[in-house]
């Protein structure tokens, strides 16, 4: 792919164009493995998934494999379970990312400003990021299981929060927030480091209170970092799977779109419908990314520095 025609002819002398050619050749060799792997494991399968999504293909009825056009998509988009899962996913995404942003900002300010123990705090905060999601999810599950859990025992007798939709989703959000707030905080911390202290001091001298300094100076200056963090986390939250799988298995109206896709693939062994769900999720993710980049002007990380070098 990298051996395409040069975009702009090198406007230099012959020696420079010779160097540019060597550089291009080297670049092609260096990038080839990454490109090949990424294409082989994503582009080809996704194309295959599109093909599967146009088939009636249920492993339980292997003889009845046939081309059915878009009818799997029609089945998905007219199905109450899809919209329920979609609503759950959007709700969990919006709520957890909003909480993460607020908490992450607080955490970043603490890490940035704390008078002592900065190293300890920064280290410990990485534990939620590093802990295997499934392990953490089991921790939350047992914490909220009546009898076993220290948290469930704080609730009134007879309540089993993981078996009711809203409480269960609240726990899912809690588990997501716990796990990913540190990541958010670190991204924001990096943005925070770009806010010059002088500016804040000047504002303070001019009589700006802490809240004003936050909303008028810190946040606007952090906007690029915030948008990138939001983009990352939104897309990540939208594909939520592990926490829901462990906490509720998607029962009682808590299934996310990823859980729905998994269940249709592996509980129903319906590869046609399952692939249609997969592709629909893919399209949703693409739309979200597009909205962020175009709507909010989020700079896609890494997209800027090329061009210059």
């Amino acid at each position: 792919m990298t051996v395409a025609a040069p975009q702009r002819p090198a406007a230099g002398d012959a020696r420079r164009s010779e160097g540019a050619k060597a550089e291009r050749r080297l670049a092609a060799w260096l990038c080839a493995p990454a490109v090949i792997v990424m294409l082989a494991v994503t582009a080809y399968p996704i194309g295959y998934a599109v093909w599967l999504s146009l088939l009636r293909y249920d492993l339980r009825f292997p003889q009845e494999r046939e081309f059915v056009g878009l009818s799997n998509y029609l089945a998905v988009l007219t199905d109450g379970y899809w919209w329920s899962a979609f609503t759950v996913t959007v709700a969990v995404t919006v709520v957890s990312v909003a909480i993460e942003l607020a908490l992450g900002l607080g955490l970043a300010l603490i890490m940035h400003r704390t008078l002592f123990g900065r190293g300890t705090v920064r280290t410990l905060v990485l534990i939620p990021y590093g802990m295997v999601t499934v392990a953490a999810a089991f921790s939350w599950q047992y914490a909220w299981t009546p009898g076993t859990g220290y948290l469930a025992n704080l609730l009134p007798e007879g309540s089993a929060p993981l078996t009711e939709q809203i409480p269960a989703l609240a726990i899912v959000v809690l588990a997501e927030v716990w796990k990913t707030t540190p990541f958010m905080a670190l991204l924001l911390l990096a943005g925070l480091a770009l806010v010059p202290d002088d500016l804040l001091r000047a504002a303070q001298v001019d009589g700006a209170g802490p809240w004003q300094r936050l909303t008028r100076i810190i946040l606007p200056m952090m906007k690029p970092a915030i948008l990138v963090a939001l983009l990352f986390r939104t897309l990540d939250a939208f594909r939520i799977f592990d926490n829901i799988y462990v906490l509720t298995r998607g029962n009682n109206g808590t299934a996310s779109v990823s859980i729905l896709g998994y269940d249709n693939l592996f509980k129903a062994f319906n590869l046609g419908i399952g692939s249609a769900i997969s592709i629909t999720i893919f399209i949703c993710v693409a739309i979200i990314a597009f909205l962020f980049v175009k709507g909010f002007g989020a700079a896609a990380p890494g997209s800027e520095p090329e061009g210059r070098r």
Partner: protein
Amino acid sequence: MAVVATPGRKAGWSLLNLLVIVYALIPVLWIASLSFKPTSSVTDGNFIPRELTLDNYAGIFATSQFTRALINSIGIAIIATALAVTIGTMAAYAIARLNFPGKKLLIGVSLMIAMFPQISLVSPLFEIERAVGLFDTWPGLILPYITFSLPLAIYTLSAFFREIPWELEKAAKMDGATPAQAFRSVIVPLAAPGVVTSAILVFIFCWNDFLFAISLTSTEASRTVPAAISNFTGSSQFEEPTGSIAAAAMVITIPIILFVLFFQRRIVAGLTSGAVKG
């Protein structure tokens, strides 16, 4: 801002720090507590166990269900990390240092993959791997892991590469080294810290994966620990495998905690590199 450390402020920050520490550690301490509780008191709901036992650990290490999974997890994560970082280093160098057409496309593609919903790949990969015999094998998991961690590796590495003093490379080139030689003899040693960082991040990613692990494996031949845990059986219908799950969760959490303790600075730098520079 220069702040005077009055006792009041100090107490306030202590409290905040304490809150953060509690926040980070509670779920870990809780699963640790469960893992040390004997079967008789695992459902007593106490945060601090009244009596301690190592039975749960002895129990999981006595079964191939767990030990095999642990070997799989370690092997698969290490191989995937090595390959992803190697491939990623090459691409990242090109992106950070070389001018070539299609760079934008390459970055765009890897960005797309970073945001890709994994579930979308599960059904085709399940079918393809079944057809070519990769289903339920190590390579069957290593391949998607490499792919999904490549963007991460490329971002962190190219960010590191941009910081490297390139004059050295130029000097090497002036001494007659080809770009490839310059890459090998000058840049690689300088880039080592960045490579270690991205290796840690990639390892954590592979170690953490659950969706591919439960979808593309079916036996002990390749099932990793997160997938194995979710398949744990109690010894009878009425016995929840709580203690075993907690112990297994601890075993896979400890290496990560060690990583975090040793490489805190690097991890922070790696995680934030993509975001700020962009």
